[in-house]
């Protein structure tokens, strides 16, 4: 294959929670963004890296998975919550980066779920309708999901739903809003994700996976 003619690799990273922890891991695997990336005032979404054949894009976590699944970006980093929610068939998550730990949990008001919920039917506010539906289905409960994009915690007190499903790390936000965690759906950590076709046809993608895996194994051993 002619390496000179190869298009640049695109590496998608999420805004927010995972980013701070991800940068050192990426650096050890040889992915270092240009200085403009750290400039808080820079509104650009695409950044160069120290590698000529690679650029970074910074997008919302859910969009990282979408870009990579469609092959618009070849590689990315995203929480396993997003991977599970989409369940894209063309997405591989070959390396557990062991960062960005939290859990996806069900929470309800301290005084119990509102009367909108019955024995076989619950109404849940969440950013994760698919995961939520699957979780309740396994218990023989039909979950009616109200998709919200944030501030789930206030929904039960306003009567929008009986309970919520959201990411929990310390549990502080839940407590402050009068909610209590009732069960954990799944533990979350950040994963390196790659596009299936890119992994199989572009040796640079396989080399990146090896670099991230070697780093993850070295940290695990330490």
């Amino acid at each position: 294959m002619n390496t000179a003619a190869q298009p640049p690799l695109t590496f998608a990273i999420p805004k927010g929670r995972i980013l701070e922890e991800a940068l050192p891991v990426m650096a050890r695997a040889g992915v270092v963004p240009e200085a403009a990336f750290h400039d808080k005032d820079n509104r650009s979404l695409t950044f160069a890296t120290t590698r000529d054949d690679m650029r970074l894009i910074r997008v919302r976590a859910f969009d990282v998975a979408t870009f990579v699944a469609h092959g618009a970006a070849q590689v990315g980093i995203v929480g396993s919550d997003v991977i599970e929610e989409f369940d894209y068939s063309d997405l591989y998550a070959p390396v557990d980066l062991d960062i960005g730990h939290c859990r996806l949990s069900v929470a309800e008001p301290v005084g119990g779920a509102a009367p909108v919920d019955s024995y076989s039917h619950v109404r849940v506010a969440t950013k994760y309708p698919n995961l939520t539906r699957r979780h309740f289905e396994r218990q023989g409960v039909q979950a009616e999901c109200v998709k919200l994009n944030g501030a789930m915690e206030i929904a039960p007190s306003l009567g929008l739903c009986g309970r919520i499903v959201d990411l929990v790390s310390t549990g502080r936000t839940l407590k402050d809003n009068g909610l209590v965690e009732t069960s954990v759906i799944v533990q979350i950590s950040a994963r390196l994700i790659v596009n299936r076709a890119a992994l199989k046809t572009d040796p640079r993608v396989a080399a990146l996976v090896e670099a991230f895996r070697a780093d993850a194994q070295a940290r695990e051993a330490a």
Partner: protein
Amino acid sequence: MSDPTADLLPEGLADRLPRAAAAATRAMRAALDAMDAHGYDRVRPPLIEFEKSMAMRMDGVQPRRMFRFVDPSSLRTLALRSDITVQVGRIAATSMADAPRPLRLCYAGEVAVIRADQLDPARQRLQIGAELIGSDSVAAAAEVVALAVESAEAAGGRNISVDFTLPDLVDTLAATSLPLAPEQVDAVRRELDAKDAGGLKEAGGEAYLPLLYATGPFEAAIDKLAGLDAGGALASRIEGLRQVAARLGSMARLTLDPTERHGFEYQSWFGFTLYAEGVRGALGRGGTYSIRGPEEPATGFSLYVDALVDAAGEGEARDVLYLPLGHDPQVAARLRAIGWRTVAQLGEGEDPRALGCSHMLQGIDPVAL
């Protein structure tokens, strides 16, 4: 017509306009010619069959994905085909049950699904493929992979890459050297499929982790896989893969992903996926399988060339000869016989260039416009 939605096409269905239709026709013809040259006879099964006969021939075929409706004459459920392979399986098991084996058949036609994939909105696709019925040996696998690469190239695929897999790997290992409880098998397979190292540990498949690393360029990956095969349960499969790879030689870039399960619902020991440069996603896949009923082994592949047609873009403009009013029809016929494409003038006031013509007939000679 005041209703702009009257001509709306349903989601995932589209017209192929002249350029794209020509490209699709060329790709289909070239692939069928390659199969024909290797002794594969074309069959043309119907668009619609009884749901039951489509569902029973191969494991993992989901009638739920097919358009289904009731047949007004028999009152049984009919289904629009979503995969021609099962129809070829039916032909091999019924009308051609007595034909000598190995039986080599090929096909090309449109298939439809009731709901599109997450990533590909198309609900109708052109499927082209070949099936070698009566054998799932290493020799059969090698012949079919080589033919698949040749057909894909004929259809316009460039820099073909072939990814090998062992579809029944987890079942084999779970029953022998890396035992799993029956209820764990599905979860382990799912996580292996997604290459999710973290998820695999949680599903209790930690012993399977090294399989994730036996992935990549064929030579290195097959050595890793052989190194993992402590009990020798995979020895014959690994040897088979090496022989198939040797047969392909430098025809294509080879990779191995022993745990790939995407799109391999009914394959047995051997499966492969074809990728081509500039084509997003897979161009085709194939492998060994068993035709239910007679339980006959078979090997085959399918190409979905729509992606190639999309990637091909505009294509080259062809020479077209404009035949003015009053031209000599016999001259025109002779020119067509030697390969000219002609457009005859119908009335006054036509602009040959606007009609796509590159030449005009003057007397008995084509003259460039």
